[in-house]
């Protein structure tokens, strides 16, 4: 089995299924950290009824591969599984799954967190939100850039 699984999905995925795939036939890694991000029903004070995720095909995949490789170069990891939705999504649907296994829980937590933090500021995805007030492009949050500081090694 390949250690990295990275997928940009036009169709919904199910977190429990992805978790089962991440863990199948792997009894060496006692620790597993997972992050799941979903469409919430409000954002920046506005009611949200759904959103559309645009991305940059080709660059997206390369960007995700670079981020996962960065995690592998920093921590001793078993498997990494990363899925990101594109296209139209309803409230409650999952956008992102990041699962990391490792013999060590600190490595699993750190790598999972690192991947999500870098993805938020680097991977070419953009959210267009729909709500009662119409559509609007979600603005990037400066706090996402600040969070990256904790992974600086220089």
């Amino acid at each position: 089995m390949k250690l990295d699984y990275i997928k940009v999905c036009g169709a919904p995925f199910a977190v429990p299924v992805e978790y089962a795939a991440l863990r199948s036939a792997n009894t060496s890694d006692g620790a597993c950290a997972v992050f799941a991000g979903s469409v919430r029903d409000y954002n920046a004070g506005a009611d949200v009824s759904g959103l559309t995720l645009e991305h940059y095909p080709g660059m997206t995949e390369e960007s995700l591969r670079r981020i996962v490789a960065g995690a592998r170069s920093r921590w001793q990891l078993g498997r990494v599984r990363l899925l990101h939705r594109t296209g139209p999504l309803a409230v409650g649907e999952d956008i992102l799954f990041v699962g990391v296994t490792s013999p060590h829980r600190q490595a699993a937590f750190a790598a999972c967190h690192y991947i999500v933090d870098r993805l938020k500021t680097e991977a070419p995805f953009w959210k267009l939100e729909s709500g009662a007030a119409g559509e609007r492009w979600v603005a990037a949050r400066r706090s996402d850039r600040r969070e990256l500081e904790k992974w600086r090694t220089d």
Partner: protein
Amino acid sequence: MIQVLFFARLRAELGTAEHRLHGFSGSVEEVRAQLCTLFPDWRAALQSADIQAAVNREIAASSTPVRDGDEVAFFPPVTGG
């Protein structure tokens, strides 16, 4: 030929997802300048301080050189995850 791509808010503001430049050589900044010369209506959106660029699907600086056959993209800050 240089293939120039626009994404998300910027694509919506320009009203197009791509534009081809022929016989161009220069930097990312010069691609942007040439587009603004060709389409003065694009200036506000393209020169917005938060617009980022990629060359051949990798994040690029203003000074990154662009050569014939390259793919250049302009886009607002990413908001995935």
